[in-house]
């Protein structure tokens, strides 16, 4: 019944179409960052304790590129972004509570 006034069902801007060239640039960046991960790994003895941080920082940038462009989160509605973000938020809660539990028991009684 709602269609009886005859407005167009599919608005031209409903599905955002990412240009081919953008996908190529994102993929190139992802490949470059993967090589950068290996480059950082090969000099890990000079990086010392920051080596893991460098590796995960690069992984974080790659994850952002995949989520924003490949998974189209850049053009996704705010509701869906929040739904997906909730997964990460509760993961932080899980990590926070678990790590505090383990560390506090180790600090207080020295036993896990």
């Amino acid at each position: 019944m709602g269609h009886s006034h005859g407005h167009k069902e599919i608005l031209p801007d409903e599905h955002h179409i990412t240009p081919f060239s953008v996908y190529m640039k994102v993929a190139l960046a992802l490949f470059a960052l993967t090589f950068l991960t290996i480059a950082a790994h090969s000099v890990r003895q000079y990086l010392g304790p920051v080596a893991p941080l460098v590796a995960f920082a690069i992984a974080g940038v790659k994850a952002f590129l995949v989520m924003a462009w490949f998974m189209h989160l850049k053009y996704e509605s705010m509701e869906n972004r929040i739904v997906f973000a909730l997964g990460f938020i509760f993961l932080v809660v899980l990590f926070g509570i678990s790590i505090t539990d383990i560390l506090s028991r180790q600090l207080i009684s020295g036993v896990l």
Partner: protein
Amino acid sequence: MSTSKMINGVPVQEHFKNAHHQFDTAKMGIWLFMATEILMFGGLFVGYAIFHMMYPEMFAEGARFLDWKLGFVNTLVLIFSSLTMALGIHFIQMNQIKKAVWALAITIVCGAIFMVIKYFEYTHKFHMGIFPGNLLDIAKLNEHLTAQGLDTVKSTNLGMYFGFYFCMSGLHGIHVIIGMGLITWCLIRAVRGDFNPNYYTAVEGVGIFWHIVDLVWIFLFPLLYLVG
């Protein structure tokens, strides 16, 4: 499906206001599923972080047995497959169905290459006596290492590292196989002519699933192969 009617190339089911409403509902379902995926893999990552903190030497010793070159090749393969998956959707949006079918086919082949490399990694470890948890045969592994003139294993709980390794990469591998099946389903539907620029919900959803498989691997690769 009998209760849907075609509107502008989209089979809109009766309980939806319009195609837009139907697409948004499907998308929210996919994103909810993705949140659960993050939590499922996330639990394993949290466990890894905690036990790594407790036994850093043992984890470093375990990571020694992984060949980063194989993980590196698999990373490139998965990134490429994510690109072709995204292009598959792009080509359907542009109404170039033939190109979309090719892109999806290449994505499936990349998934297969990934699994073949994983197969060689796994069988090599089994051959050395490396299994998860208590199943790890430390005597057999040490025999292997001595024969090759390498240092024997010092950690008695090395099985824990490989428990994480096999659970995390195994769960990821199961996702790759399921993803390949889902992409095959999309490919068959694309060949059959189900999709058009106004209707490609299934490919979009499967695409998001495939990208999350890539996303998990982006973190698994440095975690298992490089940092250890």
